[in-house]
């Protein structure tokens, strides 16, 4: 195992100051019929080096939009209308597109949801990876070829299979190749968008194990987007629970799972099947998430909430610190005296 010294070059940073700080990020989409979809509103969280942050929520809650906004890869009808994205105290939103290209993939890279769709079907795997390296002018093609071998070895793909095409790979291997591609330029932050959703449990375990190993070796910060609460519990240090484009709850994984404050988090956890409690009836969350074009005036979860009080329908709750480094956006957490109702 020769890890390649350059991989470790940017490994260690001071852990206390966040590597990436997202503050009040707000994103709107203009739909073809002229309406505006409020995809993200005031989303804030911090990402630390060497740690894994989980972004959880139902489909359409803005998880992927958050990643795309940070990478500045939103589709043309999407606009960042407010907030800041601080990478080492530099606001990425102040950069021009040309300047941004120096950060994308070199500083932060992404593992896309469906590896089959993200990889080029008519290009060999090793060429795809070295293309990314050469494009960012890190080295010449001979050096790049050697680096591709190292990367493939790191993700557990035999060098000899580098000259094959994506369709010759199994689902798990494609995801490994995708991870190798994301590591091509030694990023400090890795965004993983549902990296294991389409995979079997055993292959899922293999991929999660791989991400963890790579993180330990390179000191990466990982942002893991998923709707699978089990996966988050297995690998994440901190968790952001999103609902309808806003942060519902944000805190350490331990507190989120064992002392959830927001009713949405509580219901989400109850609806997840737990092998340790067989025979228990699963609770589901009645109703559907709000339409982002037509948001309720108060709390976005109010129509589905089992603990709602009068104020919820009229006033949107702020994200407040309920205990040290644990935040929730719920009126019940805001004032303890109303919470006792």
């Amino acid at each position, binding site marked *: 195992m020769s890890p390649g010294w350059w991989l470790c070059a940017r490994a260690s940073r001071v852990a206390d100051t966040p590597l990436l700080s997202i503050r009040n990020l707000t994103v709107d989409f203009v739909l073809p019929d002229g309406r505006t979809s409020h995809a993200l509103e005031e989303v804030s969280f911090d990402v630390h080096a060497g740690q894994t942050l989980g972004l959880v929520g139902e489909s359409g809650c803005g998880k992927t939009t958050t990643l795309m906004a940070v990478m500045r890869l939103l589709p043309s009808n999407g606009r960042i209308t407010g907030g800041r994205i601080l990478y080492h105290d530099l606001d990425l939103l102040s950069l021009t597109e040309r300047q941004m290209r120096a950060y994308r993939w070199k500083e932060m890279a992404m593992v896309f949801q469906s590896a089959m769709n993200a990889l080029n079907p008519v290009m060999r795997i090793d060429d795809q990876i070295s293309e990314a390296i050469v494009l960012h002018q890190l080295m010449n093609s001979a050096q790049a070829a050697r680096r591709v071998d190292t990367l493939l070895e790191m993700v557990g793909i035999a060098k000899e299979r580098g000259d094959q095409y994506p369709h010759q790979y199994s689902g798990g291997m494609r995801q490994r190749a995708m991870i190798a591609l994301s590591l091509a330029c030694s990023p400090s932050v890795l965004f993983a968008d549902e990296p294991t959703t389409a995979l079997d449990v055993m292959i899922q375990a293999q991929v999660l194990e791989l991400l963890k190993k790579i993180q330990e070796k390179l000191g990466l910060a990982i942002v893991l987007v998923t709707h699978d*609460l089990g996966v988050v519990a297995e690998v994440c240090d901190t968790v952001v629970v999103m609902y309808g484009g806003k942060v519902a709850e944000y805190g350490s994984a331990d507190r989120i799972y064992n002392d959830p404050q927001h009713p949405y988090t509580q219901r989400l956890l109850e609806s997840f099947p737990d092998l340790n409690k067989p025979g228990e009836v699963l609770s589901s969350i009645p109703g559907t998430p709000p339409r982002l074009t037509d948001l309720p005036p108060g709390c976005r979860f109010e129509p589905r909430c089992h603990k709602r009080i009068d104020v919820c329908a009229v006033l949107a709750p702020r994200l407040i610190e309920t205990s040290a480094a644990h935040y929730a956006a719920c009126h019940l957490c805001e004032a303890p005296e109303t919470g006792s109702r």
Partner: protein
Amino acid sequence: MSQVAQQPILEVRHLVKHFPVRQALLAAFQRKLRQRIRAVDDVSFTLERGEVMALVGESGCGKTTIARTLIGLEQQSSGEIRFSGELIGAEERRARAGLLSVDVGRVGTREQQMLPHMSLKRLRQRAQMIFQDPYESLNPRATVFDIVAEPLIVHGMAREREERIRRVAAAMEDAGLRPARDYYSRFPHELSGGQRQRVVIAGAMVLEPELLLADEPVSMLDVSIRAEILNLLNDLRRERGISILFITHDLGTVAHFADKLAVMYLGRIVERGPTEQLLRDPRHPYTKALLSVVPVPNPRLRKARVILQGETPNAANIPAGCRFHPRCPVAIDRCRTEDPPEIALAGDQMAACLLVSHAQNQAA
């Protein structure tokens, strides 16, 4: 007739399904041994009335092939399937045997041939399948009403208009699409993933079947919706006494309502037993590994996981001896040469592992 009521809804004995691999012409001339994909390789199980059994295993282990064979979408290579006591698939096999003089024609013993046979159409009135992906299994150009009513038309049931509307409405409301009339004229693209899967379930339930074959019905859905669909299936089973064969790769989702589990690996059931007992005391190393990687929704309960390396081998090339031995963390020398038999254990549990038989023999 009282005898019929006590008969298990489904009895599968030594089911085998091999797919021939397409071969070059030259190789055929040279009389090379024709390669076969042994998708299902000697599988037996029984499903009682009103029972839910989960068939668990990784992709490519043959779970879906079993379901497709049970419903007659594939023809078994050998073995017998009884639905409520009647042999299925055999009628078509005999018809084929008349045309082909090869040994496909030998179907069981004389005694078996004397038994009543069930045609596929009659079978499909009583057994229905729910497919994995509600985005692909619904006709995008048909309305919800037409989709749910189609099985009635195919089977020539409920010919009266009022009767048909009544049965479609009942099936849709049972599937949680309430009020049903709001959904009649909608198209699949107007529905969410959870609603689509409810339409699929309504389409299966409209014939009032006795058996549902559910092939990964929730793996494409969000967690909160997953729970709804699982609860819906559970209600159908409790209120209607429907038997369900639930196919999944995720042990976590079925632990809640399956009565029995069967764990498959590479075309064979390697362990089966009552759910709670099997989860508490898995005996086969593959079951143990599979259980250990099911994510637990609590960071305090993170545990050592047995992560098997590599992927399920190709079913065209099944390893000699125990088919699991190349990936088995506890394999011994004998595993390389000896195919383990099914070992019956206490409490209706079965495991096909030499190490299990070892322990049993020592205890005896």
